[in-house]
């Protein structure tokens, strides 16, 4: 249980003051993190693309995000004529609040979060589902057809991918036997759950990309089709709210994934080396997730909406269901933990093998032509 340093009663004034201080710390850290995620994304993607990224604003461009923030705040806040006024103006906040609420229950170090809920994971699911409301508000309220399409696409996609996401997390919490996020991390002192549930981890990462509207699932914000989707009409401070939300969600999902699958603050040596190391572990693990997301973004093209849905309903959902059922059997009959690893590992290898096999067959079929031309070219020399 949490110990309240400034008072032990549940609803006393000190309790509120303690919560307020923690919230302020989290909000400040989140803002800084979001700013440097934008900087980091620009730098990392630039390196993938053989560019330099921002270099001029501050040393190595480190102040770029602050300059951007100043620019965005001083921009005019335009509301289109055809927009539904209140829906349009409140949409950025409606997307931001769920993400912020998620951050309130994440343990960044042992027993340290804003509040630790016994049903933490359940709370995270429930609150993240609310994100759709803000996106739909922005899509419908903007009075723009691109925004409308983006909003509807986002709703369809997020509702679909919520299911494999929840099922994959369910299969992990079956093993952990708890929904408390702090306890989740505490149980992973020896090994992280990704070893027990690699398939659930893969499904989680995939669904996470989709929930965050990241490539290759950036269909609702597809820049080359609907030019930003639901936030196409926003400018200035409201647009920057959307950006803040996007990167805050990226970070909170990464921290969440780190806690559930990679051992959070605990693995390795979290309990032994103290809170500094625990905090570092949380940030390193989230950084790994974020780097992976940026990497994927700079490499792959976008799926089409029907392919996206097919992948969700025909591949991810059955696999996650099978995972849950298999876990159930093993746990009920007190099977050994290596059996969990085995079943899940076989599933994961199967999934990867299917994808690689498809790609590989396709590749030999398609590159034979270029191969022929390359051959011709060598003989001509």
């Amino acid at each position: 249980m949490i110990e309240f340093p400034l008072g032990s009663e549940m609803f006393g004034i000190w309790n509120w003051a303690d919560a307020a201080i923690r919230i302020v710390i989290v909000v400040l850290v989140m803002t800084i993190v979001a700013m440097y995620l934008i900087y980091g994304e620009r730098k990392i993607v630039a390196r993938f693309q053989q560019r330099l990224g921002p270099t001029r604003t501050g040393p190595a461009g480190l102040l770029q995000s602050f300059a951007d923030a100043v620019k965005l705040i001083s921009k005019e806040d335009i509301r289109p004529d055809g927009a539904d006024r209140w829906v349009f103006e409140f949409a950025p906040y409606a997307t931001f609040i769920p993400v912020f609420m998620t951050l309130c229950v994440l343990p960044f170090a042992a027993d340290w979060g804003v509040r630790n809920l016994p049903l933490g994971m359940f709370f995270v699911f429930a609150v993240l589902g609310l994100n759709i409301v803000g996106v739909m508000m922005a899509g419908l309220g903007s009075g723009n057809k691109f925004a409308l399409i983006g909003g509807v696409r986002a709703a369809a996609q997020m509702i679909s991918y919520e299911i494999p996401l929840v099922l994959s997390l369910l299969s992990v919490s079956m093993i952990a036997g708890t929904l408390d996020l702090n306890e989740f991390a505490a149980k992973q002192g020896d090994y992280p759950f990704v070893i027990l549930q690699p398939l659930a981890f893969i499904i989680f990462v995939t669904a996470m990309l989709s929930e965050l509207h990241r490539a290759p699932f950036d269909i609702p914000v597809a820049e080359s089709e609907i030019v930003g989707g639901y936030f196409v009409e926003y400018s200035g401070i409201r647009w920057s709210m959307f950006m803040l939300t996007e990167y805050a969600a990226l970070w909170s999902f990464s921290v969440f994934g780190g806690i559930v699958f990679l051992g959070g603050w605990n693995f390795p040596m979290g309990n032994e080396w103290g809170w500094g190391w625990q905090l570092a572990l949380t940030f390193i693990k989230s950084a790994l997730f974020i780097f992976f997301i940026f990497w994927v973004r700079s490499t792959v093209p976008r799926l089409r909406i029907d392919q996206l849905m097919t992948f969700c309903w025909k591949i991810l959902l059955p696999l996650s269901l099978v995972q849950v059922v298999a876990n159930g059997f093993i746990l009920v009959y007190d099977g050994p933990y290596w059996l969990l690893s085995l079943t899940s590992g076989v599933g994961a290898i199967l999934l990867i093998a299917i994808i690689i096999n498809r790609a590989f067959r396709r590749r030999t079929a398609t590159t034979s032509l270029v191969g022929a031309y390359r051959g011709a070219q060598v003989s001509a020399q």
Partner: protein
Amino acid sequence: MSIWPTERTLTADEATFDTVDMTINIGPQHPATHGVFRMVLTVDGELVVDCEPYIGYLHRGLEKLTETADYRQAMGWWDRTDYLAGMCCEWAYCLAVEKLSGIQVPERAEYIRVIMAELSRINSHFMFLGAFGADVGSFGTSFVYGWRERERIYDLFEEVAGDRMFPTYFKIGGVTMDLPENFESRCRWLLDSIRQGLEDLDGLLTGNEIFVERCRNLSPLTKDRAIALGITGPILRATGLPWDVRRAEPYGIYSRLDFEIPVGRQGDVFDRYFVRLAEMYQSVRIIEQCLKEMPKGGLVCATDLPKTLRIESGECYIRTEGTKGEYGVYAMAKGGNKPYRMKLRSPSFCNLSALREMVVGNYVADAIIILGSLDIVLGEVDK
């Protein structure tokens, strides 16, 4: 002001719930239109049921301007039609005037022209590969990969002609100046780097499962339909017909050169992409042959050129293989030092006219890719 059609608000209360189609305006300022092109898509959900293209935003009156300018001055306008491969356009214009006036081009100039035109073709196709990758949704990585090689090609153009994009390097009767001394070694270095860039892009795009999945079987086209619609160039070759003006009606010295015509199988978007990729290898091959066979010295421009070119009469229709297809120039002379009438048959224009037929029945996201696969250049479409 509402974005809903009025029919919708009228029928909303009725017992029979009715749906109406929505129109989406894509362009003239839209990242996927590659310039100032506008198309109005009528969509039923995400499915396109109608498409109406609007062009002319970049119409500069090329043909009228050509009628007002001297034969030599007018070439500057023709550069700016297919601005990704300016020298291919210059060549077509020069060929038309040379045909009318009977001017012979020296051997060395012919080789130089082929080298420069093929480099322009590679340049344009790199732009296609990059922009097409971005259309399909990769976040600019393919774009920058393509851009790297284009930058090097433009550097070479600058060394040879003094300008990068619109060099006006060709002239009636040859080319304006001889190649620099280190051209051959520079060009060979460039070809190596082009080949490396092609390998990179091939790996990035063709090796990507999502990319292939998006493009395969998308808006397939049959040979007969493509011919009926007047489609030429890589899109026609993607349907399996190895028709290339360089082979079918050779001009310049193409009949002496050894190269193959890549063809696709079913004319879908993937084949269009792939034909262009394979074509670039062939262009590299052509350039290598030219470097080997080119006469080492000699004139680069005809010596018997009059100070002011006057053509008594005549008409011709010159066709060349531009980067997007058959780049034809109809020229008519009726005395004087100006062309009486010049008409550009631009490949992008003709290919784009088939857009409606290709797009209808696909998703909005695919409509963007199909438009990208046509590889239009608006300077050429709008003249």
